[in-house]
């Protein structure tokens, strides 16, 4: 007879979804490699945005970057600025942050210093799997490419001067 502290159920082996739990708990090197791949995916699409903006503003300066921090895994971005430096640079990027049920993916276009909202893609949460993250990275960055006109207009907007 089982006591109150003895389990009455036999363990059942189930393998599905385990890769989702493990992917960010692997070695730091494996997690870093994953975010390297996600960053590269975002940047390969943002290259299209840069090309579109350059068609409108040939002299635009573009800087590629990435950061990570306490409550976000990765922010992969391109910063667009004019050589005179008077107008607040425009940042197009994708943020990946932990969420209770996966990873939140947020893609938007903002003023670098002022934080003015220029464009945004609806935020979404994806499961923590390599394929889902890479797909979300590609999809979000691709959608940012549709905002090239908004980026160019913001860079030419004198009301956005910061100096």
């Amino acid at each position, binding site marked *: 007879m089982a006591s109150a502290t003895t389990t009455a159920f036999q363990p059942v082996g189930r393998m599905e979804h385990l890769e989702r739990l493990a992917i960010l708990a692997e070695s730091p090197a494996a997690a870093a490699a994953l975010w390297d791949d996600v960053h590269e995916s975002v940047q390969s699409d943002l290259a299209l945005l840069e090309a579109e903006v350059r068609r409108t503003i040939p002299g635009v300066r573009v800087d590629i*970057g990435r950061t990570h*921090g*306490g*409550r*976000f895994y990765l922010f992969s971005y391109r*910063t667009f600025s004019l050589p005179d430096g008077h107008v607040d640079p425009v940042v197009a990027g994708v943020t990946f942050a932990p969420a209770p049920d996966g990873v939140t993916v947020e893609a938007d276009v*903002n003023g*670098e210093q002022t934080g*003015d*909202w220029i464009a945004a893609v609806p935020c979404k949460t994806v499961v923590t799997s390599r394929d889902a993250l890479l797909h979300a990275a590609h999809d979000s960055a691709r959608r940012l490419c549709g905002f090239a006109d908004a980026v160019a207009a913001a860079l030419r907007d004198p009301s956005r001067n910061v100096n």
Partner: protein
Amino acid sequence: MIVYIWGSLTSDNFTPRPNKDTVGGPGQQPGLSASDAIPPGRKAQGIDTEKLKRPLLAIPDDITQGGTAGHFSIAPVNEMGDVDREQLDAWAASRGSGKTHEFTQLLLDAVVQPNAKG
């Protein structure tokens, strides 16, 4: 408490501007500006001041000396709690280099509300 750096999560936005943020004002210490509020319609990054690691410190303005209520300067400080201008200048000099300065990373590590909306 939570203070907000207005703007995006870029490395440059988390690094002081030379000759601007490295210069204090009446009632205001030099350093990277932060605020206790986000203007409507803006994006900002929420920093937990208790998660900031030394030598960084968020220093509130002294409103009795002409500072602005709710404004903070984030800067490296020495053992006495005074702004270490040499370290601040070195930090600011890294802006635009494409590399993330160690103080910039300390600040990014203290972000608890990424992409907060006003």
